[in-house]
Each structure stands twice: as C-alpha cells, then as structure tokens.
C-alpha cells in the first residue's frame, strides 16, 4: 500500500516536471507515450500476470479508437464516450475470451492474432461507417468538464493523469487477492484448480480488464490523433506493443510503460537520423536480449538495489542473517 503511494507521488512529480524540459514536439511525444504506456501496461498485465501472450491486442485498441471516432459523431459527452469505449472493448474481450482461453500458449498467441486481423478487416471493409482502408477523421473533441481540450499542453496533462490512474488501478489489481491468484494460475494452472480456484474465471477476468484498458488507451489515442485507420488494429501494431512489453520487462507493471517510452523514442529518432533504422533497431533488440536481465526495468532495479544494499550494510543488514541460514539448512 505504501509502495503504491510512493510510486504514485513519483509519477505525479514526473508528469509535472516533464513540460519544464520538453519542447513542443517533446510534449506531443510524451503525450503519445502516456497513451502507449497505458496500452502496453494492459498487455503487460496479461503477459506478465496471467501468462497469456496476445498478438491481437491492437484489436481492442482499435475498438476503443473507432468507438470514439464513430460513436463520437453522435455522442459528445467525453465521459460517456470513454465509458462506452471501455465497455465495448471489455465486453468484446469477455466474449472472445471465453473461447480464446481454452487455447494455451502459442495457440493463444495465434488465435488472438486472428482476432486482431478480423477486426482489422472489419474496419477496413465497413467503409460506410469506418472510412475503410482510407481511415476517418475524428470529430469528437475531448471535454472533461473544464472546456474543450485542444492545446498540446492540456492534452499532455490529461493523458498524464490518465496514465497515473491506469497505473494505480493495475497496481491495485496486481496486489489484490484476484491478482495474486491470477499470477498463481500463470505459474501452475492445474494446481490452482486443485486448490479450489475456478481458473477460467480468473483468466477471463484478467483478459477482460486488459481488453477494456487497451480500449481505453485506444479511445484516448483517437482524441489525441484525431484520425483513425485500420492500422490501429494491425498485427504489426500488436507485435510492436508486445515488443514494448518485453523490452520493458514482463512480469512488472511499470516495465511495459518504460518499454513503450524507449521503443517509441528509438523508433522515432533513429528513423529520423538514418534510413537504416531497421538495422539499428534490430541490433538494439538483439543486444537487449543478450545483456538484458529480462527487461529494462530490471536494470533500473539493479541500480536501485546497489544503492539500497549499500545502505543496508551500513545499518548492519538484517538480511544477512537469513542468508547465512540459507547456506545449509
């Protein structure tokens, strides 16, 4: 509980401090990173805490984005619209999840890929509603009750807040009984069942939450980018988020957010400086795997631990006692 509090305060400070050092474009990029971080965290939730690796998560993102674009033509209340997005994407996750969670591991990966592709084609072919492959402009304007949000700075703060809220909600879930149980199911499904848990309910719960959150991210993105196209649900986009989650660190909440930031910055800046960006990007991924400790966040932790441990030894570390006992039981 205390941990949540500290992290939240740190995050708030971060959100507040960033505009001081960023340029216009930097603010824009940071806004996008917040949204992508929410998206990556939603995938990180099922990957790291439920063992479900999805290659169709952009499907939910697309649902959220298109909901704002399409229904936003008729509904102007932003809160209502966001709620509708979240409900639609959550419901879709719930319904498809019932079928999908019967498959496991790689099969799950592939069936979700098919799901994402299905939505992609749907958005592509329902031209009268979605603008088809050419995409459509978003007419809805974000208004949270204190005026229309149009300036980059306003967007920045709104998305920053959304990111923090998403983080807190996820943190609560992960620490909650249901979250811990879901993690247990990821470790050993059969045993959890034998211990008396209805494993499918928990998997479905996680999948639904994750889908709803991805939809939420998508709807924010729609407001931000004011243009939607089927690419939002393409498998390459799903693949990118997956990469974000992995490079950030699977099994942590914040890792995927870090992964998203790093990935987007790399993708953006390397390609600006060289046409050979795929090669450099690829090399970075390879290097990350080879020297990685399972994600960038673990490096941060590693550094933190170094500092932290030094402190402890200064105080005459109580941890050492445990260590000694471990030597031989």
């Amino acid at each position, binding site marked *: 509980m205390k941990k949540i509090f500290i992290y939240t305060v740190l995050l708030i400070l971060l959100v507040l401090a960033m505009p001081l050092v960023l340029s216009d474009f930097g603010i824009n990029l940071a806004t996008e990173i917040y949204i992508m971080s929410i998206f990556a965290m939603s995938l990180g939730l099922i990957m790291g805490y439920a063992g479900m690796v999805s290659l169709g998560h952009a499907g939910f993102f697309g649902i959220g984005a298109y909901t704002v674009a399409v229904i936003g033509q008729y509904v102007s209340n932003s809160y209502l619209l966001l709620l509708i997005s979240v409900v639609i994407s959550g419901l879709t996750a719930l319904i498809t999840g019932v079928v999908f969670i019967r498959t*496991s591991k790689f099969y799950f990966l592939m069936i979700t890929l098919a799901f994402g592709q299905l939505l992609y084609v749907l958005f592509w072919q329902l031209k009268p509603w979605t603008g088809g492959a050419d995409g459509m402009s978003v007419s809805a304007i974000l208004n949270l009750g204190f005026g229309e949000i149009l300036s980059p700075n306003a967007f920045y703060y709104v998305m920053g807040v959304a990111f923090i809220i998403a983080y807190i909600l996820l943190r609560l879930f992960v620490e909650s009984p249901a979250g811990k149980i879901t993690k247990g199911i990821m470790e050993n499904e059969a045993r959890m069942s034998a211990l008396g848990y209805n494993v499918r309910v928990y998997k479905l719960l996680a999948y639904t939450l994750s889908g709803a959150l991805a939809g939420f991210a998508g709807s924010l993105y729609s407001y931000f980018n004011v243009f939607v196209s089927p690419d939002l649900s393409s498998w390459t986009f799903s693949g990118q988020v997956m990469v974000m989650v*992995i490079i950030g660190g699977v099994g942590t909440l914040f890792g995927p957010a870090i992964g998203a930031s790093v990935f987007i910055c790399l993708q953006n800046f390397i390609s600006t400086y060289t046409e050979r960006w795929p090669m450099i990007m*690829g090399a970075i*991924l*390879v290097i990350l*795997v080879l020297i*990685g400790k399972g994600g960038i966040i673990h490096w941060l932790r590693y550094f933190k631990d170094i500092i932290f441990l030094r402190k402890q030894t200064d105080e005459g570390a109580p941890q050492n006692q445990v260590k000694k006992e471990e030597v031989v039981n």
Partner: protein
Amino acid sequence: MSIFLAQLLTGLAYGMLYFMIAAGLTIILGVMNVVNLAHGTLFMLGAYIVFTFISDELNFWIALLISVLLTAVLGIILEKLLIKHVYGKELEQVLLTFGLSFIIADVVKWIWGTEMQTLPVPALLDASLSIGEMVFPLYRLFVVFIGCLLALLLWYLESKTRIGAIIRAGVDDRAMVGALGINVGLVFTGVFAFGAALAGLSGALGGPLIGMYTGMDNEILVTSLIVVVIGGLGSWKGSFISAILVGVIETFGKVWFPSLSMLIVFLIMMVVLIIRPQGLFGREVA
C-alpha cells in the same frame, strides 16, 4: 467441372508451396520450441541469393544449392552466436528473432535495393501442361513433387532416426539429455541450421512464384505460422495436411466468398482452434 478440377489442382500446388515454406518453421518451432520470427526473412534471403547467382550466369540449380548452403551456414552462425542463449525463454526468442529479422531484411534491402524482383522459372520447367482444356504450369507440378519429397525426408528423419526423439527430449529436459551422453548443443545447432536451410530452399523454389519485394518476409512469416498452428505444434504431418487444407480452401474461397479473401486463412485458423485448441494434430495438453 474442368474449372473445378483446375482449381483443386491450383489449390493443391499452392498448399504444397505453403508446406515448403512452413516446413522449416515447423521444425524449429514445433520440435525445438523456438519461435523463429526471422523465418520469413530467411525465406526472402534464400530467394535473393539465387537471384544473385543466377545473374552470374550460373544455372538455377547450382544457385539453389548455394542458397541452401548459405542459409544453412547463416543458421549455424545465428544459433551458435545468439539463439543458443535463449532456449526455453520464449519471450526473449521473440525479441531476438524479431530483431534479427529487422537486421537481415535491412541488409537485404541494402544489398539488393528496393525494387521488386522475380526469379525466372528454370528453363527445364518453363512450360505449361495442357490438361483437357485448361493450362497448368509445369513448375507448379514440380513444386508439388518437391513438397512430397520433403515430406518423405521428414518422415524418414522422424521414424528411421533417433534425431526427432532426441530433440523433443532436449526440449523437455535439456540437462537430462546431456547426462545421457548426447551433445545437445550440437544437435540443436544442426536442427536450427536445417530449419534455416529449408527456409532458404523454399525461398529459392518459391521465388519464381512469389517474387521478391521489401516487406514480403512478414507475409511469409504469418502464413507459415498459421499453417504450423493449424496443423498442431510438433507435428510436421500436421503442417503437411494443414498446408494443403489451407491452399485448397483459400483457392476455393477466392471463388466462392470473394469478399472474405483477406480473412480466409485467419478464419480457418480460428475455426480449427475453437474446435481443437491444440491444432489438428497437436498433442493434447494435459
């Protein structure tokens, strides 16, 4: 009637192409449990290598051999240098092979440029057969033939040698296989190289049909992943059947449900996985 037969044959030939493309992936993914996202890129590389050596006035067949050898060598290098660090770590494999595919694809673009290319059909097979009133390219029949040959080879390796059992055991419990006196590292390198060589081979043989262009690697990859999954992991026979199934259904789908043509392979996969969550021939997961 004759158009029906023609389309059946078309589908079959196309399915065999799928099988060739997916074979290397099946082995690496299904047997070694390594997700090789660079498979499509190796396919592409295979085609480009043939392209290069043909332009050097070499015979198609010699160029093909060179392509297979070079991709195999690349496979060895990759395994020894990189892949061997990520056995059993699926997510790291994803990242690593994804990165590799980026790199290789960009190198290909660097060397061969962005223009689209095709491989000429080898002179020997550059003819069309007239079957009744319809015309069918000989080269496609040749692809069917090679597909069958490949299936035969895989069948031989699996049932007449211990190699298949050793690899599967190695995936189950690598240390234990070592303790039984088998050099697991060597076996895995060999298998990875074999898979890479198959990618190269299918690229060389598929080149005249599909051509080469930037971005093709992803399409090839997705297609082969789908074929493998429909068939069921760990079963090349499954891939064989599923490739033909996908080829035939897709061909007829183009005619009967033209509006679904973008989706059809994905739909097949979805339906199969809903009915059989472990694929057609996959082992049931306990």
